[in-house]
């Protein structure tokens, strides 16, 4: 997701094409072409401009509902409701890819969580992440915590640091409720990265934007990406 304001001017975007299976958009105000995944203007009067990233989560509706009881949901457009496919993921996974990167241990349609920390990109294979969650890692000197929700689908990434100290987190196995414990303060933390008990209660971990993507797409736009291995 991106902001739509450049130099104080609000732009309105529309679908304009596809570039190696990542879509292109144009703005109505200047006709400039933008790459959807990077938010960068690649051709036209605003070429070189970059939209600001808007922080968003990919969650199950159920998870989101518990966290945002007063939130609103995008209404379906009735005349297009037949086009909405709740099982789009397995259908898309069958589509051919036009770009591939042989020589890497991941296949083109392998799902990864991709993130960048100060220019350093890393991809976390979904299957590995799902088996090992919570995942502790360090990218470009920043300690990271990647967590999978109790629904097995929602995920978040945090900076594994509380009170200025690097910290380690473990999933509590002795409660039915999903919760983490940290090794520094022994506080309990919820899926939103906030401490619900212990000395850190009320504090929240800093969030890191992350993208769930296919390997070929992530690799295409992050040529220097590393792959998480454990």
């Amino acid at each position, binding site marked *: *997701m*991106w*902001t*739509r*304001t450049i130099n104080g001017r*609000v*732009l*309105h*975007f*529309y*679908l*304009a*094409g*596809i*570039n*190696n*299976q990542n*879509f*292109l*958009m144009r703005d109505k105000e200047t*006709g400039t*072409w933008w790459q*959807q995944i990077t938010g960068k203007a*690649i*051709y*036209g009067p605003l070429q070189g401009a970059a*939209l600001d990233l*808007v*922080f*968003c*989560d*990919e*969650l*199950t*509706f*159920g998870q*989101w*509902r518990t966290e*945002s*009881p*007063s*939130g*609103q*949901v*995008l*209404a*379906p*457009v009735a005349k*297009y409701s037949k*086009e*909405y*496919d*709740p099982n*789009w993921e397995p259908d*898309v996974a069958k*589509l051919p890819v*036009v*770009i591939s990167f042989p020589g890497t241990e991941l296949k083109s349609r392998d799902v990864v969580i991709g993130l960048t920390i100060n220019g350093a990109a890393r991809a976390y294979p979904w299957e590995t992440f799902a088996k090992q969650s919570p995942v502790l890692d360090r990218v470009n000197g920043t300690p990271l915590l990647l967590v999978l929700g109790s*629904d097995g*689908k929602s995920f978040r990434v945090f900076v594994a640091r509380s009170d200025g100290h690097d910290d380690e987190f473990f999933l509590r196995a002795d409660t039915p409720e999903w919760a983490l414990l940290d090794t520094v303060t022994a506080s309990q933390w919820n899926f939103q990265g906030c401490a619900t008990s212990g000395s850190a209660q009320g504090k929240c971990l800093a969030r890191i934007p992350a993208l769930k993507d296919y390997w070929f797409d992530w690799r295409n736009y992050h040529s220097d990406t590393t792959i998480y291995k454990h």
Partner: protein
Amino acid sequence: MSAPAPYSPRLQTPQPDHARRRISRWLWAAYSLCALATASMFFIPAFIIRPFRYQAPRALFVAMSLRQRAPLGTLIAALACFILAFALRKNSSRWGKALLTFTLLVVTFSAVMARLNYFEWMFHPAPGPQFLAQSESKVDPKEMIMSVRLGGDDRAYPISQMAYHHVLNDVVGGVPIAVTY
């Protein structure tokens, strides 16, 4: 007094026929160039920017460049085609007239399509977004959504919908955003 030169019809061929044929050739050449230019401005970007087809950076640049200029470029070239076709039709054979008709159809098609966004025929844009309270929504709890929280507004965008529309212009907490998938 010398005898007058014998009458020779060849030597007496009127000049305008030669000139007319030469002009006709130039007109056909100009017409062909204009028709090719019109069609190229639509068909080349349409060919390059296709789903399930690899696009090299250079090819994409060419496609975007042509597509950017096509609305005005095809209009000018198509207008020239019609003017030239009008000039050509009178002295054209039946096959010539048929060729003119066919190419004008292609020219018209290209000029019209250069103004239309056929990607939105495949993936219709969502009109001004409407939102429901959670109690009114029929989204399954296991279905994936993208959520954003800005300035007190908390919104969820089901991925099944965004995977179709691809882009949605919204304002959340007073911040204009583009929801993309």
